[in-house]
């Protein structure tokens, strides 16, 4: 019992949960609901308990549909099993959330194929380039050889930004000139990686709104090129979602999955006050695992997703 407890504390210390706590503690929480109170008090469940719970879920961006689904479940259980107090409600809702959100222990997965091709996709400004820098660094640290493919040929200075991250991680960038066809850059990168027996190729793509039909088709094309050049590629397609994203995140996940075949999610910018609850709605509808969370701007600020920590943080 005791060692397990210690373990848990240590885990918390290193996790984003505690970092989050520190970060949030600094700020005066402008519109904070005293959610924690409803769980700490040993009081009977009443309408106000459920209301505060609903507010907490809505406030975490879990969305009205998923929230009312969860609240219905609680109400149902409360009347059938006779939940006694708020603590029981908490453990019930925790379990319900954990059923939906699953983490997949990050590190890939068996690298059966060389090169292992990972395409990073997402809307503008979510942190794709930064995530790639951090991810490349992790692979390097694990002794893998890595190449980054600079297929964001659209945004001003995107390649320059990537090059700085490449230097930090000690990874080579395959690039072409601004405005080049992203699929052509991908082709180059895969060819070079095959020749050099590179373990992992991480592909940066331009941020795009999922409503832009042509740009989404461009991703389909990149997939085709990857599949043609390397067997089983892309082996992973990671969708980067910014923790501040609201319900539009579900639509993003839907569309990117349709065009790019998303295999996992990276949830970035969790070091702010946003909870990133939209991934619950995403996981519920599309059953996509969350692989990593981004918790800062430093190169080691990308950590494996921990479903339990995440769920607990929703009620912080």
């Amino acid at each position: 019992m005791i060692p397990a407890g210690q373990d848990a504390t240590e885990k918390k210390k290193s996790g984003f949960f505690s970092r989050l706590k520190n970060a949030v503690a600094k700020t005066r929480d402008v519109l904070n609901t005293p959610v924690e109170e409803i769980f700490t008090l040993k009081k009977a469940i009443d309408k106000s308990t459920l209301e505060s719970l609903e507010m907490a879920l809505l406030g975490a961006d879990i969305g009205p549909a998923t929230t009312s689904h969860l609240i219905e479940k609680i109400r149902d259980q409360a009347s059938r099993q006779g939940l006694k107090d708020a603590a029981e409600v908490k453990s019930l809702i925790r379990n319900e959330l954990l059923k939906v959100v699953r983490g997949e222990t990050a590190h890939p997965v068996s690298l059966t194929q060389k090169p292992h091709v990972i395409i990073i996709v997402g809307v503008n400004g979510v942190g794709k380039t930064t995530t790639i820098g951090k991810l490349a660094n992790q692979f390097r640290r694990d002794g893998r050889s890595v190449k980054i493919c600079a297929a964001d040929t659209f945004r001003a200075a995107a390649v320059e930004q990537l090059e700085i991250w490449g230097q930090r991680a000690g990874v080579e960038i395959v690039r072409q000139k601004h405005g080049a066809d992203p699929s052509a850059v991908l082709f180059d990168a895969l060819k070079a990686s095959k020749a050099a027996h590179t373990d992992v190729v991480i592909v940066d793509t331009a941020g795009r709104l999922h409503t832009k039909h042509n740009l989404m088709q461009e991703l389909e094309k990149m997939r085709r090129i990857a599949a043609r050049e390397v067997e089983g590629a892309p082996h992973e397609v990671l969708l980067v979602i910014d923790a501040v994203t609201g319900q539009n995140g579900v639509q993003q996940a839907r569309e990117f999955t349709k065009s790019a075949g998303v295999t996992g999610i990276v949830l970035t910018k969790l070091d702010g006050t946003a909870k990133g609850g939209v991934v619950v709605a995403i996981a519920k509808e599309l059953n996509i695992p969350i692989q990593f969370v981004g918790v800062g701007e430093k190169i080691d600020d990308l950590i494996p997703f921990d479903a339990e920590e995440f769920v607990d943080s929703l009620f912080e």
Partner: protein
Amino acid sequence: MFDNLTEKFQRTFKTLRGEAKLTENNIDFAMHEIRVALLEADVNFKVVKEFIDRVRTKCLGAEVMTALSPAQQVIAFVRDELIATLGDKEARIVYSKNPPSVFLIVGLQGSGKTTSTGKLAGWLMKNGHRPLLLSVDVYRPAAREQLAVVARDVNAKLYPGEGVNEPLKLAKAALREASLTGYDVLLVDTAGRLHVDEALMQELSMLKRELNPSEILFVADAMTGQDAVKSAAEFHELLGISGVLLTKLDGDARGGAALSIRAVTGQPIKFVGVGEKLDALEQFYPDRMVSRLLGMGDVLSLIEKAQETFDLKQAERLQEKLRKDEFSLADFRDQIQQMRKMGPLDKILGMLPQIGPMKDLKKANLDERELVRTEAIINSMTERERNHHQIINGQRRKRIARGSGTTVNQVNQVLKQYAQMRKMMKSVSGGLMGGKIPRNLSQFLPKN
């Protein structure tokens, strides 16, 4: 599943249409639907609650107006309240009495500050100003290079500040440069930062003290969820922001953050970003946004756009043709060419009210290349065919398909779209071409 707030509102009001008068019951129903719609749109839950409370009170206290159906009454209250929340007129851009004016651009990482700074420079130049651009983002890799590229693309002057890596020093130097060389606005692009990052927030405070900006624009992503209130409130408390620039409104995000931010800061939304191109920045008109939310479409913006691009004489000719029901395939082709001049199709369609025949038009999911194909198909028709679409039989369709490198199916599609277009043009011609905007709310309610 509802596509957007607009549709949700419309469904709600459709359900209410059958009812004879406002009762506590149907008010409850309407409020519930509106609440869910606003939450789906990412309006902060507290803001939603207050909003609903206000509308409900108005509905309950409403005098029975025989002229309006319950649906119309509720829509009117919602509309009034939305306008009250978003502000009833467009916000003014503030310049200082002694140039150069300084605009400080602030916000979270990835909200779109750098791109917006470039767009603002373009907007200022179009309005007769001489902006000087400066990036004080010494943290994000290649951030300053990005602004340099963006500045070059809009032909604006950038203060390079090479070798200087302190935001304050850069700011002072650029301000001096602007005064000496006659730039009247200094646009300062700052590093993205979290509102919980004390050190970086202090840096903004210092920049503000040093530069005494006339505008502090908080750049916010339209896709932001519930957290929008927290970040906006923190930035506002520390800096006293003067306005909001809402970005990425060209996606399908419902933009509820606009309502939330306005509610917690009281500051107006001044600009909206509507595309990746550097001219895709527009001033924000609250009434138009409300109309859009309520399904009336952004007809005013559309007219403005149309006025910018449409050849007036041609428009008059077209109106005449519409009146006489002589809208031919050749006119259809002209329309397509005009439309392509106005900008990306999805943007234009987004401005139309999502009702009646126009709703189907949006579902048609036209894309740019389809327009090119359509043009090719019409080009492959004979003059007679273009003027008399009735004569296009199977044989002719085959020939047209061959000539344009398409299939008979695609030719059929174009003819169908043409028929739809005829129908649509007839229904909007009163508003769009005649410059007459219907004021009666009932005209905007779904008819079926």
